[in-house]
């Protein structure tokens, strides 16, 4: 087979598929066939590229030219101009918003240039559905080294040197976890991979599984060798069909190549992996609940100790790590723990993958070295806040995390430093909020989530989170009282101290962190009966301020209920009887004239 002249790495991640990358791909393949270029130019569907904001995206190799926002209509021009005549199409390339300059090369785009790729080193570079492409980039070399040259003790000691900490959020040292499970007596042990990514606004694990599934399998093989386990499970969300499909395929290929199954690489070591589909329960991300769920029961946590390292799945010693943790392991074994620890801070080593979303220009998946500041991540990589709005807060760690305000933006990304400002590292969801976000409403959002997902086993979490939600809802409705703030704080402390598992223990965090930094907004809701961000409908007047109104009629055309009367050169007026409080006029108005 001849090596193709041009390789087109087209992103097939969920984000790009949602922006119709499939349609583009079909059109592209047809056009290449029509122009008889299909032998020279090869289209390869890769996993998530990371730059979801401008999807569908495509990287042209070996030139490294990056195309964005592709549609089927662009195909003819692209093939004719670039692939036939060698003239890259400028209008489909990235334009730097500030300088309006076109940047053709992917590595020069600020979004990519400030990142450090380790876990995601293969993203967009290989076809995730072909094992040979993974192997060609040193894939399974780490597993081979671990199986044939290293003893389990050596693997664990290398892991300890690396300083890798669990990427699921809690940050427990991985080497230590393995050591406990390795020393735990028993012939039957398990290695579990937690791919039950449930935090709203987080999609790191899904992207890794879609882009590089073999890296996770390899990490699991090494872990199994270290603790002497022969069976592994990947517990994956059922909402991730593409990730599930690629995992199944990857496992099948690994078995064919003798990398899973009996006597792996002639080392005498047996290990096999099965994928277990979750059924939609957030609490199953908690380790003991996850194990219950694999056993086919209601996924409810149990008190620890005994820890899973001693009694886990089916009461056998078990190691459970997160997808990203496993994706780090092969490189640590291959390059050494010291190599890994070169990057990072005193207590947090290596890189961390974040899902950057919300009110930020460059939405997508980013991998950064530990120790850079939140400001660098949001403004240098993320490209700042859209629509010239002001930054208000960044939410880290999902429902268990907290909101970090502007004055703390120079906090470095480090487990301990982030905890100091009232959030947690978490699994990697980063949600940027601008001035249009109401922090009380945000706390309500997370509580609503937690309250819904509480498994109901322990009272503080089941009842406490519901009471918290009721109080916050009351405040959002405009019926809050001064004493509510005190009650929120007291109740939060009780829930934190007395809940059974991590879900309940961290459930009040969104309330506590917003109370810590945005108490004035709570007070505005309670005392002035106003929502400064204009999000809580009960506190809005739905009145047009004649002094601010520019008589443009935007609100008039936006109103779906015909509740606004307006004529040219006249101030618009809202008829409260017809108004359905849908907020369309608030969104439409550019002059902040509706109060």
């Amino acid at each position, binding site marked *: 087979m001849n090596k193709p002249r041009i390789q087109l790495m087209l992103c097939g991640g969920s984000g790009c598929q949602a922006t119709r990358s499939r349609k583009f791909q079909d059109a592209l393949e047809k056009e290449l066939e029509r122009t008889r270029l299909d032998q020279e130019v090869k289209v390869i569907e890769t996993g998530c590229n990371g730059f979801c904001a401008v999807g569908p995206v495509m990287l042209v190799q070996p030139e490294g030219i990056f195309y964005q926002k592709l549609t089927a209509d662009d195909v003819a021009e692209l093939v004719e101009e670039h692939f036939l005549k060698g003239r890259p199409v400028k209008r489909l390339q990235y334009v730097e918003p500030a300088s309006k300059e076109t940047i053709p090369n992917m590595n020069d785009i600020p979004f990519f240039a400030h990142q450090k790729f380790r876990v995601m080193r293969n993203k967009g570079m290989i076809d995730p559905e072909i094992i040979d492409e993974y192997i060609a980039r040193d894939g399974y070399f780490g597993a081979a080294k671990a199986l044939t040259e290293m003893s389990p003790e050596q693997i664990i000691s290398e892991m300890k040197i690396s300083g890798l900490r669990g990427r699921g959020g809690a940050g427990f040292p991985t080497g230590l976890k393995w050591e406990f499970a390795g020393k735990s007596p028993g012939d039957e042990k398990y290695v579990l991979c937690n791919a039950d990514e449930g935090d709203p606004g987080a999609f790191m694990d899904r992207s890794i599984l879609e882009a590089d599934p073999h890296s996770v399998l390899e990490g699991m093989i090494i872990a199994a060798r270290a603790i002497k386990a022969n069976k592994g499970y990947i517990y994956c969300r059922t909402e991730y069909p593409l990730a599930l499909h690629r995992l199944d395929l990857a496992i099948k290929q690994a078995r064919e190549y003798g990398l899973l199954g009996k006597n792996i690489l002639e080392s005498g070591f047996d290990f096999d992996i099965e994928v277990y589909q979750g059924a939609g329960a957030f609490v199953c991300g908690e380790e003991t609940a996850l194990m219950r769920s694999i056993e086919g029961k209601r996924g409810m946590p149990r008190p620890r100790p005994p820890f899973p390292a001693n009694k886990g799945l089916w009461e056998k010693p078990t190691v459970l790590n997160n997808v990203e943790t496993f994706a780090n392991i092969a490189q640590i074994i291959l390059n050494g723990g010291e190599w890994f620890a070169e990057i990072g801070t005193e207590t947090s080593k290596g890189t961390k993958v974040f899902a950057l979303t919300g009110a930020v220009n460059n939405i997508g998946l980013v991998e950064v070295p530990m120790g850079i500041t939140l400001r660098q991540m949001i403004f240098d990589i993320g490209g700042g806040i859209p629509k010239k709005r002001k930054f208000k807060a960044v939410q880290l760690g999902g429902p268990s995390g907290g909101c970090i305000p502007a004055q703390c933006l120079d906090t470095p990304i480090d487990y301990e430093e982030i905890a100091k400002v009232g959030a947690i590292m978490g699994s990697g969801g980063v949600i940027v909020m601008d001035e249009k976000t109401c922090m009380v409403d945000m706390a309500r959002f997370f509580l609503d989530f937690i309250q819904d997902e509480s498994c109901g086993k322990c009272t503080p979490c089941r009842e406490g989170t519901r009471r918290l939600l009721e109080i916050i809802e009351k405040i959002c409705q405009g019926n809050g009282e001064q004493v509510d703030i005190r009650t929120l704080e007291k109740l939060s402390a009780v829930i934190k101290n007395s809940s059974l598992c991590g879900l309940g223990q961290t459930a009040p965090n969104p309330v506590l962190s917003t109370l810590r930094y945005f108490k004035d907004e709570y007070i505005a809701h309670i005392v002035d009966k106003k929502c400064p961000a204009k999000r809580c409908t009960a506190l809005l007047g739905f009145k047009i301020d004649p002094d601010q109104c520019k008589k443009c009629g935007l609100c008039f055309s936006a109103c779906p209920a015909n509740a606004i009367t307006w004529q040219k050169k006249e101030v618009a007026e809202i008829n409260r009887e017809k108004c359905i409080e849908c907020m369309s006029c608030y*969104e439409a108005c550019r002059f902040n004239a509706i109060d």
Partner: protein
Amino acid sequence: MPTPAQLHHPDISPEMVSKIDEVIAAHLKTEGAVIPVLRLCQDIVGYLPMLLIDYISYGLNIPRSEVLGVATFYSLFSLKPKGRHTIKACLGTACYVKGIKEVITRISNEFNLKEGETTPDRRFSLEAVRCLGACGLAPVLVVDQDTHGGVSASQLKSLLEHYE
């Protein structure tokens, strides 16, 4: 408890019954089989009528309470029939920040349809789902298999018109 030797239910055809029997037979010896069996059966029928729960419990020889316990615990399983079209509104934080709440309210008002419910004519079911990971397109609405990004309350009507 009656032993449902045969599955007689308006929503379950004889072909479905034989498929269900195959699923149960394939999982008889598997540990922790309840969740996969429920999932596969729901894929066949569309939802899980109580009679089917009984049938599975009998077939797997697992107490009915345990099967129902699992079926009610996980949000994937539905004991009520679904509409011809399922509208999934993403409740991820990014979508929330960008206004999915207004979109949901509008659907509720327009079709008299609450979250997790189905319209009486079984045209639409409305589900609020966890982050779909298409945060770049927020707010996101998925109707059947089609993902609609950047949805605003005002364009809903024309968007949903196509689904009869």
